[in-house]
């Protein structure tokens, strides 16, 4: 397994100062990850658990109030790992869209609402591709859209003339235009209905199979992870609590939080009562000591309350951060 992005002991906190009081929001707290190539890597977790902040760090876009406290993110470019935080603005700009792309959450805000889509496309292409005339660039865009099964006519439309699903697919197409190796997608299907969502997932899967690149897909919807991600990490209160291949996470969830997430999903044909995780998500300003999940955990022990377990291997490919699963071989409940 070849790593494409390596995250080591990353700590990125928001530092807020209001009325003389200083607050630190520990959004990404000691995260280490190895994101392999040619995979759809899912990051699951509820809102406010730090998954978007993790994506920002992966994109090397750390701007105040977000501050890097420790750790590093390295990109593998031509076989060499380069620390992303040491790059200057110019170098970052050159990597963006050619090596790494970002699909933000709301597709409506990606495009300028008063300009036709082709203007946005041209703007973006002109700043990343050198030495080509406008017409050539547009035909490149048309070609790319056609290849992905979208009608090139959408370039003539204004954003509001397209449905949400179509707009999101055009935004994804835009981000893959220069064949980046990594595409970071932040909740690409939230606010879409199931049929449009299926079309978007289908497009992402097609792109991944075509270009053999890596998607980092952030969403709270476990159904989507089951559907397209090949490997996934579960994030809770700024920490990764479980990581492994998606089929294994679903068949043998080890962390109590993951078990709750998976067992609370309703299915057609089964009307038994589903329970949410008890309690409420913790505040990242003042996260609970020890394991951050302990106030909500049904299996809590004294040890959990004062020490955070490390992310240990339960098997060669499956890792979990839980005191109860330390000695287990991965055949729990």
């Amino acid at each position: 397994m070849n790593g494409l992005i390596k995250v080591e002991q990353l700590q990125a906190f928001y530092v807020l100062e209001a009325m003389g009081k200083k607050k630190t929001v520990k959004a990404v707290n000691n995260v280490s990850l190895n994101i392999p190539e040619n995979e759809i890597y899912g990051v699951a977790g509820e809102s406010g658990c730090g998954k978007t902040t993790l994506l920002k760090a992966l994109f090397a876009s750390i701007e105040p109030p977000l501050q890097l406290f420790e750790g590093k993110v390295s990109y593998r470019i031509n076989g060499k790992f380069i620390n992303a935080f040491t790059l200057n603005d110019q170098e970052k700009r050159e990597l963006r869209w050619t090596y790494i792309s970002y699909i933000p959450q709301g597709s409506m805000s990606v495009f300028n609402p008063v300009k036709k889509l082709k203007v946005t496309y041209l703007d973006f292409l002109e700043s990343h591709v050198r030495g080509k005339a406008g017409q050539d660039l547009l035909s490149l865009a048309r070609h790319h859209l056609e290849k992905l099964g979208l009608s090139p006519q959408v370039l003539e439309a204004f954003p509001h003339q397209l449905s949400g699903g179509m707009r999101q697919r055009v935004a994804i197409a835009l981000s893959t235009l220069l064949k980046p190796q990594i595409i970071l997608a932040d909740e690409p299907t939230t606010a879409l209905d199931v049929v449009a969502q299926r079309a978007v997932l289908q497009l992402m899967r097609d792109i991944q199979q075509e270009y053999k690149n890596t998607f980092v897909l952030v969403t709270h919807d476990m159904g989507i992870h089951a559907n397209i991600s090949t490997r996934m990490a579960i994030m809770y209160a700024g920490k990764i609590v479980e990581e492994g291949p998606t089929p294994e996470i679903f068949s043998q969830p080890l962390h109590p939080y993951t078990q709750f997430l998976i067992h609370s999903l309703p299915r057609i044909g089964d009307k038994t009562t589903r329970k949410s995780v008890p309690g409420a998500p913790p505040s990242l300003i003042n996260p609970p000591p020890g394991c951050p999940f302990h106030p909500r955990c049904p299996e809590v022990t004294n040890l959990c309350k004062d020490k955070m377990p490390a992310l240990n291997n339960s098997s060669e490919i499956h890792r979990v951060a839980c005191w109860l699963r330390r000695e287990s071989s991965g055949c729990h409940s």
Partner: protein
Amino acid sequence: MVATLKAQNLTKVYSLGGLLSRNKITAVDRVSFSVQPAEIFTLAGESGCGKTTTARMILGFEFPTSGKLYYEDQDVVGLKDKKAWFRKVQAVFQNPFETFNPLRKVECYFYETIQNFHLEKGGGRTQKLFEEKLEAVGLSLPDIAGKYPGELSGGQLQRASIARSLLTNPSLLIADEPVSMVDASLRMSVVNLFREMSDSLRVSVIYITHDLATAYYISDRIAIMFRGNIVESGPVNQVLEKPKHPYTKLLIESIPQPDPRMQPKTPIQFLEEKEEYLRQGCKFSGRCPEVMEICKQKVPEDISFDDVVVKCHLYHK
């Protein structure tokens, strides 16, 4: 038993385009359904199918082009007394972060509703009513007091939004995608809350969603909407376990199954909304896998099978 709400041939037509080239889009096309007391009734369908327009007509935000609405046998279209109406019918909206103004404290909305509807007079009892409703949704006063929307989680805010709607003791709640913006770990608790409310407070709920899995989980009856028409309706078990209309089948197949072993499936076609709204005959004929010649010419009629009603030429005798 008198139905809490009955819609008869409810229709809403929007005009589109410039002054000269006018297209008429029938956003809601002769929709009829009824909601029984303490029942959870789901309106399901993809975005742009008219489910929200239907909700807006019930709430009185839109005036129906034609058709009737009855609340306990009383005609309520164009009701003048909005305040009396909103005592009985309340809404819960999709995005709790947009429901509340980020610069106002959440509790303001409660005090404002209490004041506007003259629910309680005097500080002590206002506070008591406030706490009572918060308790009904599993919140406590310290969770909300003095806080701005940004300080609460999506789940908490949505609960607060539901608690606010309960202040007037309504008999019908209209919940438009109430859980789509709520966190996965808390989503089921909000969904369960609707069930509890309908069981204990005898509130009817019109649950508007595209998520058929949660619809199956909580509702009693369901109506599947497509481009303004109800294409299939009936008890939720029958409609979702044995779907008849090809569109219902497509919707069910599109739910991402929480099981990596159950991968889809055939690629789907994706058409733009406007094109389908203006289609002649059955509006689903453009992407129906079982399309026939007649579908392109004639709008299908409602056909009943016991409790299930389906609008499709396939079942025409």
